[in-house]
């Protein structure tokens, strides 16, 4: 009994403070939770509407479990872009995979039959500043706009203006360029197959 008393005597302040602080965190968290969720959605929406300026609204259509090239699984959300008059304008989805140093998370957008890309945007990346992070630049990103949504190839030199499946790598950041390309290739393939399975996309007929 005296042991418990001793214990309480030593640590009452700690116990009371733990409760108070716990309460404080709970209150702050409850107050901010909605805003945090809203921020996330807003960021995704603004990126997606940057890729598909014609779309008026985005609707979450489906979510699939996708494997990265490293064999890790993650959840990919597919958004349906709805243009004026309620027609489906295209699709957008988030995907991720290994980059040069850390994982890269992207939003990729394709047209409504999965035939051509509308481009991609970067959700989160941690590439080397000044080299790998140039995957954010228009030189690299613009090459994806209009490219056929099949297997893309990376080339060292070539014309960046022509719209084809050849993507010119950023000099000094070949690995990062390749990572983005691989992520997009592997994800589009998997997602396309799953979309067809679900009947959201006709089988090319």
């Amino acid at each position: 009994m005296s042991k418990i008393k001793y214990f309480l005597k030593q640590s009452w302040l700690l116990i009371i403070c733990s409760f108070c602080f716990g309460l404080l965190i709970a209150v702050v968290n409850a107050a901010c939770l909605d805003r945090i969720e809203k921020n996330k959605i807003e960021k995704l929406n603004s990126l997606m509407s940057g890729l598909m300026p014609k779309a008026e609204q985005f609707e979450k259509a489906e979510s699939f479990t996708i494997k990265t090239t490293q064999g890790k699984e993650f959840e990919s959300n597919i958004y349906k872009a709805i243009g004026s008059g309620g027609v489906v304008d295209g699709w957008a989805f988030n995907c991720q995979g290994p980059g040069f140093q850390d994982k890269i998370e992207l939003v990729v957008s394709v047209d409504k039959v999965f035939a051509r890309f509308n481009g991609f945007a970067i959700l989160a990346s941690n590439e080397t500043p000044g080299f790998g992070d140039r995957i954010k630049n228009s030189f690299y990103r613009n090459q994806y706009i209009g490219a056929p949504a099949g297997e893309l190839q990376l080339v060292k030199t070539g014309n960046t203006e022509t719209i084809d499946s050849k993507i010119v790598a950023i000099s000094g950041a070949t690995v990062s360029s390749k990572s983005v390309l691989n992520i997009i290739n592997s994800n589009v393939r998997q997602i396309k197959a799953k979309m067809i399975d679900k009947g959201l996309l006709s089988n090319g007929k």
Partner: protein
Amino acid sequence: MANELELSGNQYKDTFLAGLWRENPVFRLLLGMCPTLAVTTALKPALTMGYSVIFVLLCSNIVVSLMRNLLKPHLRILMFTLTIATFVTIVDIFLKAFQPEMSAMLGPYVPLIIVNCIIICRAEVCASKNGLGVSIIDALGMGIGFTLALSVLGAIREIFSTGKIFEIQIMPDWFVPCAAMAMPAGAFITLGMLLGLVNLISKRKS
């Protein structure tokens, strides 16, 4: 009585100024090196980190100072860490809610404020021995000193690595951005040079 007030006024001013230069946490006491190096790739994250630290430092100093007479010696450090961790969690939630971009950029370095030696050091050295007033002033002085140091480092690195500051181009066209300044190596070397400079200036002064 008047004399006493004047004295305490001087003491406040002294405590405040100490944090800015004489005992500047980064340049003088070499505390809190981890965020100093990690978040100063540009001025904006440096400032964000700066005011987060000011907030945590202020709150933890106030709490510690209020309960300084109740603290048991061997549970002291545990109490400090608990207090600091709570306020850091709050800052983290606020950043996520109101500055999502900065929160993503700072990443794990926000929770790492918990182990920022400045805060625990001020709690131990100042707040657990002094009254509320001195503790608050001390927290403000130290916090602003830390923010200043971070901003200087952030500004230098941003200018040299991109030629911009706050995303506004300031360097002339012939300037070639030096990407290495944004990398870890640039952080270490810039801070080393700045410390050398501070040593030089303070030696000249005395």
